[in-house]
């Protein structure tokens, strides 16, 4: 799957909650309709981004992927600003 995105946030190596906290800040800097790609190594981020998307009113989670990285999986989240 190749997801279109406008900006990348590298949150690899950061522990919960920072990947999501930083993603939320970056999302606020995007134009409406733009997509942020977030790279994280925190496994819990997968379900946390899904949960966040359920309560946030200004974004949708448009895709998630897992990539085998060196030593640790990289969890990739695509969030789109909608409001």
């Amino acid at each position: 799957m190749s997801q279109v995105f406008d900006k990348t946030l590298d949150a690899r190596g950061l522990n919960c909650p920072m990947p999501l906290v930083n993603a939320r800040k970056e999302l606020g800097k995007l134009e409406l309709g733009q997509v942020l790609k977030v790279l994280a190594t925190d496994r819990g981020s997968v379900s946390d981004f899904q949960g966040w998307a359920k309560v946030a009113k200004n974004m949708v989670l448009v895709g998630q992927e897992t990539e085998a990285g060196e030593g640790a999986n990289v969890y990739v989240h695509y969030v789109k600003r909608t409001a």
Partner: protein
Amino acid sequence: MTERPNGEVWTAEELLGRLERGDTFFVLDVRNRDEFERFRLEGRRPVPAVNIPYFEMLELGGKDEMLDSVVAYIGRDLADQLPSDRPILAVCAKGDTSEFAAQGLRRLNYTSANLKGGMKAWGEFYATRALAEGPDLAIYQVSRPARGCLSYVVASAGKAIVIDPLRHLHPYLDLARVRGLAIEAVIDTHGHADHISGGRALAGKTGASYYLHPYDAIHPVDVLPATFPYEFIRDGQMFPIGRHELEALHIPGHTLGLVAFRLDDRYLFTGDSIFIRSIARPDLGGKAETWAPLHARSLRRLLGLPGGITVLPGHFSSLDEADQTGRFAASLDDLKTRNDGLVALQRESEDGFVRYLLDSLPRYVPEYVDIKRVNAGLVAPAEEDAATLELGKNVCALSQAYASGGR
């Protein structure tokens, strides 16, 4: 996270002490709702808790920074649900995110603490307690309190046998080092379904032989044989240990290859047969109707042992089953009067007791089929997957059917 003004931190060990004493506290759990439902803190008494995922606090608090959002959200939306007369323990998966919650609570003048290492540290915490301790005979109960799993080290004259070692080996290796014990045999009472056995790994690390009943070296659902070498356990087999010996009693029912171990008329390591409050379920091999009568006959065999023998079970379902010293042990005679399953066994006919067993089955746990695959060496999960498989408390006993509504 640089700010930590007078932040109180509870380690898993301190938490266990508080749960055992029945201390009064409240839990603010900031994991997602699925994680909270699957694995929560439980003590002698229910621990009151509220679960607000951190991302909801962040989003609904509406600030850029986590701490500011926590303060805004709790102050506005959660204040009426939080007690001000007792400490509030902030809990998350690994202990970092809950530190924001603990700090936010302090800013709002609540008494708060953070659980160090989160539910991961609690889930992987082990407690070791001596049941008997002398040069002639020492018995240690090694428990994993969050999961309700119990294992044993039996030692005499510098030699030790380990029964049902759990996945992390450090409690056994540390104990052997500190007490100067040579581990000569490692025994699994059966092929476990609820947790990943440390048996093979511990035997490999210490050079000890690994023993299992051959019936439990076959996965009951896949009907595939174990992929590793092991020594067979036979009914009546004696396992010498220093100046004592353990006698194997084959008691099929919970599994086909379940074995209890008896040390004279003094101790009975029951594995998953008789627990303190309840008895084991017969359905985890997927053959409840076929295995329940075997289970009934095996339990009757154990019931005929000397009443003064001390039952040392493989599980507990609630910390409340411990005695006042936190040990899970009771005489067989005592259990005849207060163990739900043994009371039913004495009251019912053969058929009636089988019906009782089949009417008392708790929920089936799908992960248990996979865990048995791991224990038969059919799959080898990575650490994170192993931890996920083992998440939450065991559901090996019948009584959970009534206690939790068989979720």
